[in-house]
């Protein structure tokens, strides 16, 4: 489904990704772990199509298309989704209005009829329960005044509404208490199917107790230096990253 080959990218002349190779198939969950500054979030941003990164080499093929050639919105319409590490507040844009516009943009692309306000509300009520979110959030401006946990759950609500085939979760667990983490993980697991895939970027192993990955990749200095089964995450939790860096250097 997603094939990243030798991806190199940087910002303002500083290289951050130094040749990423990663292959993800339908039905798989991959986790990326790594120390601060290893390039985890840059990878997420580059995949989502954020401007401002220089992509100097490599390719990303997504469902047979050149992902890097698509605008951010085109990627979403092809089933790509990024749950932001820091969701942006947009004062004045009503959450329900925004979500309906997003869902209808996707439906239009698929040649499906637009959802009217009533049908959309029905769909949203169903999804919002999954995330145990308060319905009053929907009347507020996008992410404005949301608590940290509400912002992260709202990201997964958006994921549920857009039903992506490939989702990147960028440190969705950061700043969540264990109860909120369970809710978020429950939502993500609920969306998991044999025909979609997830890439979970995290700083903490504990997320992987709830979202169980098929593969764990360790990112250091913009390269994947180790790949292993889910048990690798436990080892990282116990031993930190230094042994991998040393092992690599040796």
């Amino acid at each position, binding site marked *: 489904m997603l094939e990243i080959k030798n991806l190199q990218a940087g910002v303002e002349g500083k290289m951050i990704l130094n040749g990423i190779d990663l292959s993800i198939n339908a039905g798989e969950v991959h986790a990326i772990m790594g120390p601060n500054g290893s390039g985890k979030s840059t990878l997420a941003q580059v995949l*989502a*199509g*954020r*401007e401002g990164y220089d992509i100097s080499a490599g390719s990303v093929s997504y469902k047979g298309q050149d992902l890097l050639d698509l*605008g*951010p*919105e085109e990627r*979403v*319409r092809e089933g790509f989704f*990024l749950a*932001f590490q820091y*969701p*942006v507040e*947009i*004062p*004045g*844009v*009503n959450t329900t209005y*925004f979500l309906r*516009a*997003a869902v209808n*943009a*996707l439906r239009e*692309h698929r040649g499906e009829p637009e959802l009217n306000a009533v049908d959309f509300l029905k769909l949203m009520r169903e999804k919002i329960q999954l995330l145990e979110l308060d319905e009053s959030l929907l009347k507020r*401006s996008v992410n404005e005044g949301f608590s940290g946990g509400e912002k992260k759950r709202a990201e997964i609500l*958006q994921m549920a509404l*857009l039903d992506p085939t490939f989702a990147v979760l960028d440190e969705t667990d950061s700043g969540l208490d264990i109860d909120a983490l369970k809710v978020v993980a429950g939502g993500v697991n609920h969306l998991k199917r044999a025909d979609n895939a997830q890439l979970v970027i995290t700083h903490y192993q504990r997320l992987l107790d709830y979202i169980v990955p098929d593969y764990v990749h360790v990112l250091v200095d913009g390269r994947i230096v180790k790949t292993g089964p889910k048990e690798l995450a436990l080892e990282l939790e116990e031993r930190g990253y230094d042994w991998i860096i040393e092992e690599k250097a040796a």
Partner: protein
Amino acid sequence: MVAPAQNRDAVDRLLAALPKGDAAGRARVAELGFPTPRDEDWRFTPIKPITELNFCAASVDADATLEGCVFADVEGPQLVFVNGYYSESLSQIGELPAGVEVRNLATADCPAPPAAEDAFAALNAAAAPDGPFVSVADNVNFTVPVRVYYLSTGNAGTTANVRGYISAGANSKLTVLESWAGTQAGYFNNALTELHAADNAQVEHVKFQDEHTGAFHVGALHTTMGRDARVAHHSLALGGRIARNNLRAHLNGTGIEAVLNGLYLPRAGQLIDHHMVVNHAQPYCDSHEYFNGILDDDARAVFHGRIHVHKGADKTDAKQTNKNLLLSDSATIDTKPQLEIYADDVKCTHGATIGQMNAEQIFYLRARGLDEEAARRMIMHAFAGEIVERIQNEAAREELDRLVWDRLEQMKGVGTA
């Protein structure tokens, strides 16, 4: 001060066109003279297009209608002034509860206006004009909004003065919705409105100014507030070749909450100016000033916001923001927030932003599948919506929200800024 020579002629011509006015009042206008760009308070608003008008007095127009005006579906009394003259046929007052007075000022027992700070105010006083008189007695909760319509049908140089007086007694509640509209280019409206909110009164005042894009408008609003008063003024400024709003707020008691909330949307050839002075005279008062502007084409806007915290006004909480979105490289905004603080233990913040759209927000919306233009539109509407949604009167808010939305859709620069 002697009027500067270049404006003396304009003052004389304007006074000659006044239908009435006392000699002392006329002398005061001449003495003050029209402001020039050398006056700090008028530096960014050149009034030459006004002083060059061929002034003539406005006249009665019995054929004017309210067709196309806002707030048509709002229930409640309405006062209508056409070219500054009270229109009895268009006004509808109906049954009013005890303690509520809605009439034209000429027929009311109205106190003298405040001392004139400039030639426009002096001119207004000298002309002794008519206008709305809305008064609610102590302890009266008047939940129905009072609508005031100002229609202008005159052509170039037609000059009308109007004076409004709004008074809310202690513990009373009042909502006033003002609409300004005009049919031809070049007329000049000079307005002065007083709003007095007594102790513990709650007043909402909306000024929707959507005049001919070739019209000239100078409008002052002087607000005084007593202890624990809650006053919200909303200025939605859409129209006029030059539209200047002088907002003066006096927080004269403790525990007051004042909100001055404004949105300006000038388009090609327009200049919209808000010049605001908020005086905190007593402790424990909050004032919030929010002004957002979206400027298209070669439009200009001016925002001057001075918060003056007087000695003894401790525990003042004043917050002022002025945000501007420029949709074109040739649009100009001059913004000048000012704080003058002579009290202790106050919380005062001010900030002004000028810019294009927030790239983070645009990316976030695109990352949810909206195309770039849709994302820009959404953010632009939000920028305006942030102001409109502070209007408490639901019917007015919803109508103005739709109207502002339509107006923004007509802006040329939306997809490109």
